Structure formats: C-alpha cells, structure tokens
C-alpha cells in the first residue's frame, strides 16, 4: 500500500505548538509511506484539492490526515478520497489538535507525540480494507417524545411534510410549560391564545397520532427501523368514550387532589381535566384521592357520566409503534426552590415560585387572574422578585444561566403593575441577560415605564414580620445593605433537566451532560442531532431555552427528519462484524453477548455457525472480543488493526 500523509497546520491551532514540517519529515520514514507534506488547512477546498492531486500524482492508495478530531472532519476527508477515486475506508486520521496541540505547550513533546500518532494511523491503515455500504429500507414514520411547544412544532412540521407522526406526552394533555403561562415576553402576547390553536392543529391533523398520558418504556432497533414500546398509563376513564364534557368534574365530591397544572396553588377534583383548553380533552382519575379507589365508596362519576366512560379497573397498557426516527423534546423542570432555606422556601406561604405567580396572573388560574397572597387572600402592594434561584449558583449545583428568568421577571413586574396599578415591584438581580430581539428594550420598559425598581445584589434572607415579609439583601451598586417590606415574594426559579430525562436518554442511547440535559452532536454544527443516528433533539431538553428558540429548534429537528426521509433508502455503515466461517466453531458465545441480537446461528454443511445480520449490527465489536477463536472480526477495528497501532508505539 502506498500511503500519503498530510499534516495540517490548522492555522496556528496546531502549528503553534507542533512542528508540522518535522512531523511530515518523520512520516516519510514510516513503512508504506511514499509521500508526506504539511498543509495550511487540510479541510479547506485548496487543502482537499491538494490531497486529491497528491493521490493522483503519487498513485496513493491510502491517506493519513493528521489534524483535528475524527469526530469533526473524518466524513469530510472520506468524501475527498471518494472524489479521488479511492475507497473511503482507506483513510485514517491522527488527532493532533484536541489530543496534542491544545493540551500541551511543549513544542518538542508535542511534535514527538504527533509523530507517534501519525505512525499509529499509518500502521493501522496498512491493515485497512475497502468497505462498501449497503442500502436498506426505512420506516418513514417519526416519533416525537414530549408535547410541549417544541414537540408540537416538530410534530406539526413533520406532519405537514407528509410524514406519519406519533406524539407521546407523559401528562394527560399536550402544551407543556407554555400552556401554563399567562403572557409571553417581549410581546406580552396571551400564551394560550398563541399555543391553543397549534394544540388543536395537533388534535385534528390526520397524520398525527397522539398518545397522551403515556411514557416510553423501551426502544429497540436502529435508525430507520426503531421499535418503541409505549406505556399508556391507566387513566381509569375510557378515552374512546369520554367526550370531555366535564360533568364528572362538577359532581366529584373529592376536591382535594393535587393540581399540577396550577403548580399546586389550588386543589382540584379527583377526576379532572387539567385545564379547559386541554388536548386531548379527556378526564383522568387520580387514584390517590378517588374515594372509589381508596375506600370503594362513592362512584359518583360513573353514575353521572353520560357516555359511561368511567372504568375503575383499567390497567396500564403497552403498545408498540414502529418508527424510523425519534425526536426527543422532553423539555425542562423547575429547580427545587425549597433548597434555599434562607428564602423561606416551603416555610412561608407568601414566598412563591415564578410559575405559581404565572398561574395566579392567568385568567384561567386558581384565582381567576387576581393577584392574591396565598396566606390571607389580600392584594399585595409590594412585590419582590428574587432572580437566579437555582441559576448561576455553584453551591446548589446549578452553575449555568437558565437564560429566560431575567425576561419573565421583567414581564411579571410589568403585569403586576397592570393588575394592581398602585403596586411597586422590586427585582433583586445579579446581571440582566436580555440578548434576544427586543429583549433589552423590554426590560428597560419594565424599569422606565412601569417603575420596577431593579436592585443589583443577592438576597441574604427573607423573614416574616407581622403580616409582611422582610427581604434583606445587598445593593452592590450602592455598596449598601437594603431591606424591603414585601407583601409577596416571587422566586425566579431556574430550569433543570426534566425528571426522568436521563432514563429516556439511556433508552434512546444518547448522551447527556452533568446536569441531565441531552447532548447535541456538535455544539456549533449539529445542534439538533445526537450521536445516535436517527435521534434528534428539540427544545429545552438540550439546555434551557425560551419559546422562540424552542420553536426554532422544533422546526429544525423536523427539517432534519424530513431530509433524512427524503431519501428512499438509508446507507448502512459497513464498519460491522463479519464471521470467518472456517474459524467459527459454532459455540454461540457471540450470539449471547450481542446487545442487539444481530448474530444468528446458521447451519453450514451440518455444522452450527454464526452469521451477522448486517442491517442490525451496530459495530460495537463486543462479539469480536468475546469470540475465543478470533473468528468474528469487527471490520475497520480488527484485532490486527488495533494491535498494529499498539506495535507502532510499543515493541519494547
């Protein structure tokens, strides 16, 4: 094999701490290498053209590029090879940027290490074989997990694009956090007026199948052919019969059930429809509060239901859907504010969260749009907002900025003035983060037009005095301590990953960061893809996002799904296992270890042998290191290739 080596400068990214010319010179001495050079930007068009020229000029049949991580540009250079007429797998990359030039400053040591990495790549390349992809059919149906605004947008875009969509939502209605909001910033639009019609579109779209009150139980398969088991939770109401008339709710005598839609501010009936605009508009029984379920008494709802939909014996049900792609849009949850004991979290009834305040402002909320102190129902005059509760605070494990709290606090201070004209809002903030379109203008309006008083500093404690709450904090601009008499304290709680997000990530086999947010394929260039083919992300499950950003990402994820499905067939990755039938002794160890069931037993002239099912094999290579005979080899990562790398750097 004639190998060409190209050592990239990457501007000064590599050249700054690696002598690339010396690396190229050293590479010329390696076995198989007939040509080596350094190049300014290997990935640029002139850089790639240079590689193609060299392949033709020197009759190369293998290429090593020493540059950045293969996770970045391996596909780029593989295409370059194809353009020059070589097989894309006769290519190896040495990562001398992320793994060398960016992590050490010693030029001599870096150069030496780069030489080693190139030697390893060249040694592996000598054992590479041309590999060829196969095409396979895909199921052009998409599953969206999460029915918040991002999931709704993704579902509608996919469905409008002609795809069959399965939307799975864990609560009994879609709408997510946005449905709970009263108004949205910076336009002060009515939230449910904007979202409501879109929710109805979901319900009426012929291409969308909605599974509400359902969760993902198990995900099997691979891109193009996923098989998802969905658990439909028992609602104790036959939804095929329920018309959402609400008579059961009116008559239910148990009125103490928790009301998650109203953020536990109010109570609701044991059988309930979460909110008037709910989609689907179906009732659900909360078994913890239903007298029929607890004591086998009552049964009023069954008696009054005109369509006889009540079914106290209903059980969870598992249904299976087959889809070709999955979009995760599980959103976020609110930070547990009770951690901040000094703010009176959970102790004082007049300290509430921003989302509770939002429900209070909403005309469909428990107080019908009147701002009332939870303790005595009086109208507050001084409302204090405390920002960064569970954001930008290392001490509670949330060092990141949640991004939207500054804006919704400004909005809430404006709405407070609208609701109670003689009220005064105080906002304790750390910095104002308002980088969106019309965002900074909006916060300024809150201060200048609506007279909200912004105090830069953290609050040290909140304590009751009479029927008031005293908020004590610092004003770092004045360099002074301040105390404010508050009638109501609203904590601007930050966002954290949705409860159960990590479980879903494991089922989908996607990665998540230290805080439980799902990881995108690349922070800049692959914002909606994951590293698992066929799984995409939308909305705040990837990191805190406001509504416009969530909607944009929902559409982006839909575009990715549509472009994937625009092809008639998918190409399989040929980096999969093959069985050497002569070596195979038919022990079946590979069959039992394969996590995907991709190896089956066949009969070969009366002998049991293993065979890899190409479309199912994911290329992990667990079988290869299990096989006692070395008969199963993972192509592109064979024993010989890995050991060639070892030999290139060790050998005594």
């Amino acid at each position, binding site marked *: 094999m004639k190998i060409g080596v190209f050592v990239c400068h990457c501007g000064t990214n590599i050249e700054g701490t690696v002598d690339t010319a010396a690396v190229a010179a050293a590479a010329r001495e390696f076995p198989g290498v007939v040509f080596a050079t350094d190049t300014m930007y290997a990935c640029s068009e002139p850089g790639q053209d240079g590689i193609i020229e060299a392949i033709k000029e020197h009759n190369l049949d293998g290429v090593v590029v020493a540059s950045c991580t293969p996770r970045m540009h391996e596909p780029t250079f593989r295409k370059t090879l194809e353009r020059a007429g070589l097989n894309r797998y006769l290519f190896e990359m040495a990562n001398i940027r*992320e*793994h060398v030039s*960016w992590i050490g400053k010693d030029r001599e040591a870096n150069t030496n290490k780069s030489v080693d990495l190139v030697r390893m790549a060249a040694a592996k390349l000598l054992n590479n074989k041309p590999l060829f992809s196969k095409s396979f059919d895909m199921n052009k149906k998409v599953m969206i997990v999460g029915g918040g605004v991002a999931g709704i947008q993704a579902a509608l875009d996919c469905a409008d694009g002609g795809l069959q969509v399965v939307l799975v939502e864990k609560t009994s209605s879609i709408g997510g956090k946005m449905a709970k909001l009263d108004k949205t910033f910076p336009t002060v639009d009515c939230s449910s007026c904007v979202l409501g019609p879109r929710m109805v579109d979901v319900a009426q779209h012929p291409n969308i199948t909605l599974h509400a009150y359902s969760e993902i139980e198990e995900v099997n398969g691979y891109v193009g052919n996923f098989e998802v088991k969905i658990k439909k939770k028992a609602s104790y109401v036959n939804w095929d019969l329920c018309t959402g008339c609400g008579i059961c709710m009116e008559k239910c005598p148990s009125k103490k059930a928790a009301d998650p839609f109203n953020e536990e501010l109010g109570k609701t009936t044991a059988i309930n429809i979460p909110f008037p605009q709910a989609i689907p508009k179906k009732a659900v029984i909360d078994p913890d509060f239903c007298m029929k379920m607890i004591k086998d008494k009552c049964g009023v709802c069954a008696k009054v239901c005109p369509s006889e939909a009540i079914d106290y014996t209903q059980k969870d049900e598992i249904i299976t859907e087959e889809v070709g792609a999955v979009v995760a849009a599980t959103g976020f949850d609110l930070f547990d504010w009770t951690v901040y004991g000094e703010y009176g979290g959970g102790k004082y009834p007049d300290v509430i969260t921003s989302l509770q305040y939002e429900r209070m402002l909403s005309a469909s909320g428990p107080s019908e749009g009147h701002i009332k102190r939870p303790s005595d129902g009086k109208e507050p005059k001084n409302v204090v907002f405390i920002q960064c509760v569970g954001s930008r605070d290392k001490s509670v494990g949330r060092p990141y900025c949640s991004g939207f709290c500054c804006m919704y606090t400004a909005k809430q201070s404006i709405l407070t003035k609208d609701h109670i004209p003689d009220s005064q809002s105080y906002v304790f903030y750390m910095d104002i983060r308002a980088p969106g379109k019309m965002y900074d203008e909006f916060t300024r309006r809150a201060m200048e037009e609506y007279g909200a008083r912004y105090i830069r500093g953290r609050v040290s404690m909140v304590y009751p005095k009479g029927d008031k709450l005293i908020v004590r904090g610092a004003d770092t601009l004045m360099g002074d301590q301040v105390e404010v008499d508050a009638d109501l304290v609203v904590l601007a709680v930050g966002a954290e990953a949705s409860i159960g997000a990590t479980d879903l990530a494991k089922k989908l086999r996607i990665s998540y960061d230290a805080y439980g947010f799902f990881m995108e394929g690349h922070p800049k260039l692959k914002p909606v893809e994951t590293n698992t083919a066929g799984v995409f992300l939308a909305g705040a499950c990837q990191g805190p996002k406001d509504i416009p950003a969530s909607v944009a990402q929902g559409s982006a994820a839909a575009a990715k799904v549509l472009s994937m499905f625009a092809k008639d067939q998918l190409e399989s990755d040929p980096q999969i296992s093959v069985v050497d039938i002569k070596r195979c002794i038919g022990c079946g160890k590979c069959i039992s270890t394969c996590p995907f069931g991709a190896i089956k037993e066949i009969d070969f002239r009366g002998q049991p042998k293993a065979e890899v099912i190409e479309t199912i094999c994911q290329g992990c290579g667990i079988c290869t290191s299990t096989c006692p005979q070395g008969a199963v080899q993972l192509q592109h990562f064979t024993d010989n290739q890995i*050991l060639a790398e070892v030999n290139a750097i060790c050998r005594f």
Partner: protein
Amino acid sequence: MPVLEGKELRIVGFLCNWCSYGGADTAGVGRFDQPTDLRIIKVPCSGRIDPLFIVKTLMSGADGVLVSGCHPNDCHYAEGNFYARRRLEMLKRFIPMLGIDPNRFDYTWVSASEGQRWQEVVTKFTEQIHKLGPAQKIEGADAEETLKLMEASL
C-alpha cells in the same frame, strides 16, 4: 523510536468512541493542560477491548495502559461497558501473575461532556506511572521468544 528520554513514559489509552474519546476532545477544546505521555487508540466501545490487547501492550513495552469508556448504564451500545467492566476487573487480578505491577493498568469511565474529569484522570494516571518509573523491558533472546508467544496468543 525513543520517547523523550527521561521526560515521558509510554502510556497507551484505549478509549471508546462515544464517551471517553469525546471527553478527551472536550478537554482539548477547553484547552485543559495535560501530560503528553498518553497515546490514544480509539475503539468503538470499551466492550471491543480484548483484555489480551492490554496484556500485549504491556508486554510490548508500554509503561502503563489506561482504558476509559462510558459510565455504566450510559453505553452507546446499551451494555458494552458492562462486558468491559467484567473483563477488565478479571484482568486486574490476572496482571500480577504475569509479573507486571498491577498499578500499571487502570480503567475508568469518562463521559463526552467531562473534559475536566478527563484532564484529572490523565494527570493522575500519568503521575502514578511516573512514580512507578519505566517498566522492565524484555531484551535479547527473551524478546524473540516473547514476541512469538504473543503472536500465537492473538
């Protein structure tokens, strides 16, 4: 090729593509300073690592071997790292029988987002190997014999 005499030792890292290789990339992107001794071999999954690779690497003259994969339960291939964990735990007990200091081998879990953790892992492991010093090299006729044995074993 001699490594930087006295400055560097030969440490080989086997890293899974999805978590730890990504974590090492993240550390690079974050410009987290690390010792330069480690050479990384990328494998698709820690479950792809045959324990004999590690034995062979150590017998071939490496001063240390570090394996890193996805955290248990987070494997891209569902359960590859569980196989890896079982095999590597066995290997840990087996290495002293070969006359190799077991401290020359270690395995760990680093996710793609844990650049800082990767920096700590590399720094700590490299220090550990430097404390042990260069491994005893096989020389002369023994070397030929060992090579033959190793070729036969894999």
